[in-house]
């Protein structure tokens, strides 16, 4: 085994350092090489992302029911219906809970990322603890937390251990249910935000902190004047992600409550339109509208907070 490897290596090595003068053929070949590498990911992207979107746009102009071989072109009728039915947009109030939760989540993630970027005991362990929930499948999380919030379930048991006796139905009222679900969502996505922030913080050169300490800056000053400006682009990204995320919440409420008790989100409503009432055309239009809303919000946000170059030194 070692013999053959060595032989192969011996044969290759002398050939490598010779800088072959690039002929016409090689140059063309070089131009093609990156595209050859890109074929697989591009094909996947086109087949599984762009092609379905194009199909969806096409369906949004029809009255297709999702299965019938016949469909009729109805023009902008579906869009007219989406925009003339205020009840379809009422569900966006639910997104407010998730938006508030994502603010909490960003602050928490920033706090933990800052703390754990300094030398703390059991640092890697805590990093693992915080990031772990993000690795779990969303459906599994839904089921786990269904038991967690059950009457006499994990949450109630833990609280009673602490001497708090509650008889609260956690998913019982719209406010309580949405808060609970938003809490689950914080638990789940905190890790992602945390890792983004931690990466950004660790890319700040260490000398800066040393210099700052020599100048007598405390931890708060270090955060305020070094970390915060240093991670601004990532912070903007996190905010965009959490806004678009809270507008399109789906998995956790769909698995846990199915949208009952006032926890229906826009995406759940769209799925119901498509698969329960067989209005695939209308649902496609609603999905496109959601896409446009998210693009619009992102655009407004980018205009308000321009992404300027960061220069710490």
């Amino acid at each position, binding site marked *: 085994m070692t013999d053959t490897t060595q032989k192969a290596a011996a044969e290759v090595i002398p050939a490598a350092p010779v800088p072959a003068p690039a002929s016409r053929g090689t140059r063309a070949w070089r131009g093609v090489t990156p595209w050859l590498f890109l074929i697989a990911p591009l094909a996947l992207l086109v087949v599984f992302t762009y092609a379905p979107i194009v199909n969806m746009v096409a369906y949004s102009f029809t009255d297709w029911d999702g299965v019938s071989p*016949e469909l009729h072109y109805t023009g902008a009728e579906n869009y007219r219906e989406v925009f003339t039915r205020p009840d379809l947009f009422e569900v966006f109030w639910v997104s407010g809970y998730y938006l508030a939760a994502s603010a909490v989540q960003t602050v928490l993630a920033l706090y933990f990322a800052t703390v754990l970027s300094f030398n703390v005991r059991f640092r890697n362990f805590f990093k693992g603890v915080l990031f772990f929930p993000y690795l779990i499948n969303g459906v599994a999380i839904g089921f786990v937390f269904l038991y967690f919030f059950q009457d006499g379930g994990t949450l109630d048991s833990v609280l009673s251990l602490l001497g708090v006796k509650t008889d609260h139905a956690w998913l*019982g*009222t719209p406010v309580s249910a949405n808060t609970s679900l938003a809490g689950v969502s914080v638990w789940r996505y905190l890790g992602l935000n945390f890792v983004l922030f931690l990466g950004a913080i660790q890319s700040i050169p260490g000398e800066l902190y040393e210099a700052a300490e020599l100048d007598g800056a405390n931890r708060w000053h270090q955060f305020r004047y070094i970390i915060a400006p240093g991670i601004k682009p990532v912070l903007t990204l996190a905010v965009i992600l959490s806004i678009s995320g809270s507008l399109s919440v789906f998995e956790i409420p769909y698995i846990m409550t199915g949208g009952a008790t006032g926890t229906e989100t826009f995406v759940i409503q769209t799925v119901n339109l498509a698969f329960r009432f067989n209005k695939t055309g209308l649902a496609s239009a609603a999905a496109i509208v959601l896409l446009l809303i998210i693009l619009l919000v992102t655009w407004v946000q980018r205009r308000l907070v321009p992404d300027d170059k960061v220069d710490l030194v």
Partner: protein
Amino acid sequence: MNRRTVLAVVVGAALLVPGCTGTGGSSKGADAAAPTDPSKVTGTIKVLTVRTDLVQDGTLKKYAAEFNKTYPKVKVEFEGLTNYEAEVKIRMNTENYGDVLLIPAVIKKSDYPKFFASLGTEAERSKKYRFTDFTTVDGKVYGQSPVGVSPGFVYNKRVWKEAGVTEWPTTPAEFLADLKAIKAKTDAIPYYTNFAAGWTLTSWTYVDGSVTCDPQATDKLAEGDPWAEGADLRVGDTLLYDTVKSGLIEKDPTTSNWEESKPRTAKGEIATQWLGTWAIVQFQDAAKKAGVNPDDIGFMPFPAQVDGKFCAVIGPDYNQAVNVHSPHKAAARAWIDWFTDKSGYDKDNLAISPLKDAPLPDVLKPYEDAGVKFIELDDSKGAQVKTIDNQSETGIYAPEYRQNLVDLARGARKGSLDDFLGDLSKRWTDAQKTAGS
């Protein structure tokens, strides 16, 4: 053209290709005739089913082995789908959706000939089988349910007896009084909503017909207002509302658990649930597993009487049909006929036989003793009801409507019952106008 333009054109062209493939060709419809000589039928057929449990424990294989004694050259394969409706719906956009499948609710009745092969004319099949009009289009039948089901309350006899109730309640008010007695005299939860599972609540729609004992109840849904005073659905919904409002249900419905509810009912922790005959066998199994007496599981009709008699509606379960694109239609037809007539599937599930001349199963013996009247609903307007339902987004076969009703009754949603039902009937009757004919 620079590189970017080339790329854009290529990607754009690639995107347009799938955009054009929205519709498949529609076929003309075909017949799946019953084979005359069993030994000559050949082919491998795939049977789609919702009974994943029977696929896993090998029960279906046993049926197939039995089937092969008559049809030795047919190989039967099973595919269990957990999320049947959604998965089959997507597969039916192609031609590969098994050889035998269950007709999903989403398919419009008028589209049946495009997807399924006919099993024969209604005039001929209705002599032998029940439920033929549920799948009849232009005089031809496209499916056959292997079992019949009837909605009703699954209840724990022991608990009801402990509460001092020995007679089935005959009015909703009596039913509520009985549940209150159970709450006062026993530790059991009088009524379990199974709110979280959702689909269990949809059983309440099958109240339709039981209250007025009218075989034309489906016509009334299509043409009248289902939530008018005294209409079947209103009576059913009001009973559910009052039950919840009087605090006769589980403490936290939002985290209720269907699988757990079976052994709990068997053990007497839960007294009553509105389900159907299909559930009896599952609850008895749960009782056996929990080591309690399966005979404690009882079944009673909706608390309403017409001329002093209870009324039970018998309807089909999923209808089996032959894929119109199947290359082995004779074998597929043979399977449906055998499974319906000879497999004993109905008896194994304590269900009502789809054959008109077959006797009622033993579990419905108390019904016979009590003189319960059995009716079958006329389904000629069934397709229209489905259209109105989708159009109005009421979802009478979907969980949300009853979940909202339960939320309303327990105060998690604002409003009154009258407004809630009034809104439903307004949406329903508005949709009737546009979806009419």
